[in-house]
């Protein structure tokens, strides 16, 4: 049976958000294709993984457990994924477009000589007619991704090679566990048999990973700042307003690059995609890459000195003015008018 396989990224016993987002999407694709949803978990202590993934509708969970498999290194994980794909022959294989997924997926694609599309923001199932050879391909994976600096959206297909491989950006698909689910089947993989000592040629000698502190994806209100905010000090105003409104602070890439705030707050193509009920864009010009990450917000307010800033075209309200002047007034009038 040619199923759909998702590589689950695991950090200290927790399945990564992006993998759960992928499982949610993959479940609906598997439903359309009338096939099963498979997941593979590779790591050191994986006892807690089944309970985390089965609520997402996983039919078969492959488990490769070995102390040498955590933290992630390329070749051992690639060897297991390659072997599993050769054995089970899934029609589609999906990875998160993360530090790990973008390191692993190309290695796998090259070994299997399969097509791989990076950083997809949408996945769909569809047909394709190839005129040149008069052939109709049924139920292909449409891998949709921004390209050319975000100015175009390309739909990529792999008509001939299997599996069809893609990495998917974190934060663009919605994560939704099932209300009612059945535990799937667990299949242990023969790790010792599948790996050789020569797979461990890269040794990790030191590692500092920070825990994620903020999750702007879940915030109902986002006060986001761009380069136009001007300084780290002015950014404090955004934190004040966000706290007052019960929201979070977001940022454009330019603001992050300028050091006004951290990367984990970045909204847009190289950050996260958000859909809050209110997005207040402060001093953000609205490059296409930023707009792609926030245009689905229910309401958008732009505060910008430039009346022609592109962001204003998608804003419901535009305040032409300086962020340092406007935000204190918003804070004052909110305090005055809210009960």
């Amino acid at each position, binding site marked *: 049976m040619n199923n759909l396989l998702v590589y689950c990224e695991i950090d200290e016993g927790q399945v990564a958000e992006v993998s759960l987002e992928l499982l949610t999407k993959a479940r609906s694709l598997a439903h359309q294709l009338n096939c099963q949803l498979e997941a593979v978990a590779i790591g050191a202590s994986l006892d807690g993984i089944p309970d985390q993934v089965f609520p997402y509708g996983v039919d078969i969970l492959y488990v490769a457990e070995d102390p040498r498999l955590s933290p992630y290194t390329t070749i051992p994980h690639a060897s297991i994924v390659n072997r599993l794909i050769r054995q089970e022959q899934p029609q589609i294989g999906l990875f998160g477009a993360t530090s790990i997924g973008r390191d692993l997926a190309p290695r796998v694609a090259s070994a299997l000589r399969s097509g791989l599309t990076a950083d997809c923001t949408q996945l769909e199932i569809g047909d394709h007619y190839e005129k040149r050879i008069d052939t109709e391909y049924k139920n292909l994976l449409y891998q949709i991704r921004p390209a050319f600096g975000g100015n175009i959206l*390309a739909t990529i297909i792999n008509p001939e090679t299997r599996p069809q491989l893609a990495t998917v950006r974190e934060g663009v698909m919605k994560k939704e566990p099932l209300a009612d689910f059945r535990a799937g089947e667990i299949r242990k993989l023969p790790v010792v048999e599948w790996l050789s000592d020569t797979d461990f040629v890269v040794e990790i000698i030191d590692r500092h990973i920070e825990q994620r502190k903020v999750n702007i994806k879940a915030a109902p209100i986002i006060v986001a700042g761009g380069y136009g905010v001007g300084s780290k000090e002015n950014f404090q105003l955004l934190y004040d307003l966000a706290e007052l409104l019960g929201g979070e602070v977001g940022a454009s890439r330019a603001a992050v690059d300028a050091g006004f705030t951290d990367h984990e707050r970045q909204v847009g193509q190289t950050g996260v995609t958000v859909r809050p009920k209110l997005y207040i864009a402060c001093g953000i010009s609205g490059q*296409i890459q930023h707009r792609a990450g926030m245009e689905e917000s229910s309401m958008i307010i732009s505060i910008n000195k430039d009346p022609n800033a592109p962001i204003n*075209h998608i804003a419901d309200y535009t305040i032409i003015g300086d962020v340092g002047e406007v935000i204190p007034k918003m804070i004052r009038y909110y305090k005055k008018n809210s009960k």
Partner: protein
Amino acid sequence: MNHLRIIVLAKQVPDTRNVGKDAMKADGTVNRGALPAIYNPEDLNALEQALRIKDRFPESEIVLLTMGPGRAAEIIRESMYRGADRGILLTDRKFAGSDTLATSYALSMAIRKLEPYSLILAGRQAIDGDTAQVGPQVAEKLGIPQVTYAEEIGEIADGKVTVKRRLERGVETVVATMPLLVTVHNSAPPCRPRNAKRLMKYKYAHTVSEMQHSNEDYFAWQNDRPYLRIDEWSVDDVQADENMLGLSGSPTKVKKIENVVFKAKESKVLAPSDADIEWLVRELIHNSTIG
């Protein structure tokens, strides 16, 4: 260990970072012709790492390898101005239309001609595609390990290299055996500028195709100055299988390209006055957008 051969993979790309008004046509599509061709930024970070290794081991050789049309020789000269020893332009119409898999195959075949090598350095990704796939795929094709997102290349001893990697939420230091492919992240130091003496010397470095337009006897001229020859390698030169190149060797196909057009909304424009801002805040409270 004093004379390492370091191959740097680089690409000439359209500058997609600053797509200005003149780069957009009236219908909202990208006017690719209006975008300048530049040295892919992270490949310059990779070149700097190679140069730093050569600073430590001066007998090392830095070979710049790029695949592209004839004009891509520009980035080979640019690399020479900054310290690369020689360059190879992998160029052939049969490479056109290659996706990342076919490109990796072509590069790996060229690299096989450059054996023995110790390190292959490349930028993490190119700004025209942002896929970050070619580095790892080249490593797989050559059967060597990869270390991605390098920020710093540390100790090189006993056939092993220490590399500090920049991850999404932290850093990791690894030790890997050579030969090794390393992709370099933009948080690594920027590339040093051109060296004035090298600029004077290498501005005459050309491929044979570039020399064909001159009237001089360029073969004799270049034979006297072999350091000014930029090698051009074709599909046949690297003994690549044509079926694995170009469109036929590329499993991914572009089905559709859409221009991203944002629908303009009816935006209500307000002044930064007390009256306007109080009105807006009351409006937001009234319709329950804010509590």
